[in-house]
């Protein structure tokens, strides 16, 4: 990959047990301390600390002109942040839920992603947009969308999607240091689902790099966000049948780490993609195309996709039926193995 951020080495560094939401908070705190161009904006992020507490304590510490409660106006937030970004600041915007980013879609599609191109790099938009996304937390309608592809089909921005506290902090800091706009998708299901050791200092996780979270020989499972856990559970069950799964946590959705995908699939010769977005038009298709382009002759079975259905994300009493489950993933694994 070509991004200039390198994964740091922290072998001897102090760490702390953090949840993903704490790690995100910590990442913003560090950058607010280090770089006074950093400015955080969003709805209810100040006194309230954000509806998920991602910005808890930051306004108290850095003041309400650096951690700014904005009016309820996503296009306004992104639009003014563009002005801030082209004029020397580094805005980090919280969109309360990914499903509420749509009013700002024009600003992102026609400006955030295109100002560099349009001005031949004279103006740039070093902006981070953070958005909680995904289903499974019994939230009201529209709060559970995972429409990542609306942003991966948009040259000019990058999209990352951490699944762990460590990656969340490292990718967020990388995004905040990136010279270009980065959308950070945060899976709500993982906000508090586990703690892990996270360095207390500054470090980055390179944008554009996936990670093998489980090594295996027979099938490659490709997932991101909350689906990594689903893949892990399915892999456990498959192991009991003697099927060895390798799992890739994609981590960056644009630009995709093609090398990690092709290397793994060429080794295992089979792939199952898991995502919670709708099947049609989902990012799974991009991954199938990458496999088609790079590993056609290696494949022993058609690539399987286990995804959300082609229906609006249901109201929460039925959302479990929308989301991929370990059982459905297992079926996909069996299908490619027994093809």
């Amino acid at each position, binding site marked *: 990959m070509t991004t200039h951020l390198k994964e740091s080495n922290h072998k001897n560094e102090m760490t702390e047990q953090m949840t993903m939401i704490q790690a995100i908070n910590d990442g913003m705190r560090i950058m607010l301390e280090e770089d006074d161009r950093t400015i955080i904006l969003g*709805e*209810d992020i100040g006194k309230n600390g954000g509806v998920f507490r991602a910005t808890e304590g930051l306004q108290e510490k850095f003041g309400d002109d650096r951690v700014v*409660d904005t*009016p309820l*106006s996503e296009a306004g937030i992104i639009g003014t942040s563009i002005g801030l970004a082209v004029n020397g600041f580094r805005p980090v915007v919280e969109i309360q839920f990914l499903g509420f980013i749509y009013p700002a879609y024009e600003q992102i599609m026609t400006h955030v992603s295109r100002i560099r191109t349009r001005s031949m790099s004279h103006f740039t938009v070093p902006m981070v947009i953070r958005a909680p996304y995904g289903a499974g937390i019994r939230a*009201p309608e529209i709060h559970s969308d995972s429409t990542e592809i609306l942003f991966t089909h948009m040259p000019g921005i990058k999209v990352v999607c951490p699944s762990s506290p460590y990656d969340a902090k490292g990718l967020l800091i990388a995004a905040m240091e990136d010279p270009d706009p980065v959308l950070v998708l945060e899976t709500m299901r993982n906000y508090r689902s586990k703690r892990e050791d996270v360095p207390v200092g500054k470090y980055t996780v390179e944008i554009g790099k996936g990670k093998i979270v489980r090594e295996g020989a027979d099938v490659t499972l490709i997932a991101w966000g909350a689906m990594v856990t689903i893949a892990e559970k399915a892999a456990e069950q498959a192991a009991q049948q003697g099927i060895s799964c390798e799992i890739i946590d994609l981590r960056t959705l644009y630009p995709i780490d093609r090398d990690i995908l092709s290397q793994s699939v060429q080794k295992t010769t089979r792939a199952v993609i898991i995502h919670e977005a709708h099947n049609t038009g989902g990012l799974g298709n991009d991954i199938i195309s990458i496999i088609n382009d790079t590993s056609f002759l290696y494949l022993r079975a058609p690539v399987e996709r286990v995804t959300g*259905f082609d229906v609006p994300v249901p109201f929460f009493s*039925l959302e479990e039926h929308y989301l991929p489950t370990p059982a459905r993933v297992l079926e996909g694994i069996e299908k490619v193995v027994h093809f």
Partner: protein
Amino acid sequence: MELDYPIKKIIDDKGFFIDSTYEKQINEKLVKEFYFNMMRIRTFDRKAINLQRQGRLGTYAPFEGQEASQVGSALALGSNDWIFPTYRDHGATLTYGADMVRAFLYWNGRVEGCVPPEGKKIFPPAVPIATQLPHAAGAAWAEKRKGTQNAAIAYFGDGATSEGDFHEGLNFASVFKVPVVFFNQNNGYAISLPIEKQMNSATIAQKSVAYDMPGIRIDGNDCFVVYFETKKAFDYARSGNGPTLIEAVTWRTGAHTTADDPSKYRSNEQGMNIVDPLSRLEMFMKNYGYWDEQWINEVNKKITNEIESAVDEMERFPAPNVDDIFDHVYAEMPAHLAEQKKTYLTHLRGTAK
């Protein structure tokens, strides 16, 4: 601008008439209707919070403090009018004729909660803020084009005024002079954001100037002024004069939702000076001889019964049907979706055994 938009009231905080011209129009029937509906939705609201605490309901958005606004406005509608609520307006829709069982179901993540009784033009609650304003304008426009006397009302909060859709909805309504009432409940906060940070304007009512439509500011805790002013706006709309913007100044007594902790962003004292709309009505009833203990007791019993049995019915409601997530996407299911449904139902049967 505040001076140009004084808050209209009919009764004061102690329940005495300020504007006595209304004395004649307010009779026992109306007063009891107000009391009944406000008490009914208050009881519903508190019950919902309780159910949520007990894990019998999902996250819930309470409207306590806003009963006069919701009941006063909803009672002003005709039975063929359209109503476009938000998630916080179940008080209004229940008053207008929504089904209480379904209102509970809604908060249990049941899509059945969005389906109105046949013939009641109650739109599903808008979750994306302010998006319902253009819908209301469009539905009202349709009524105008059909040549009916029906109108529409859109409910929305103070925070909603910051969204582009607020502006585009009001602009369309004013350009095409459609019979719609934009009913704003200014409850002081949008989640944690106080109105002073939401907007620089002293009032919401004055935003009507941008569209040359009437804008009025009323005491949203005075059910009488809400009722009569909404009625006026409807009359104005039905007579072909177009939309009105009403700012009902009220107060959200509780949390934004049951998932929210208001102590993080507002002090306990805030809102202390605001007289609860139901207490105010009670005082009014006592002041003017409408208070009838026996009737009150009956009404309260009736309400409790209704609510208990609605909760009961909600909890005995048939379990959610997986088919529903596939069956209402299109009038006719496309082949690939039919395949997804079939595969999934087969899978479910497989894992069930």
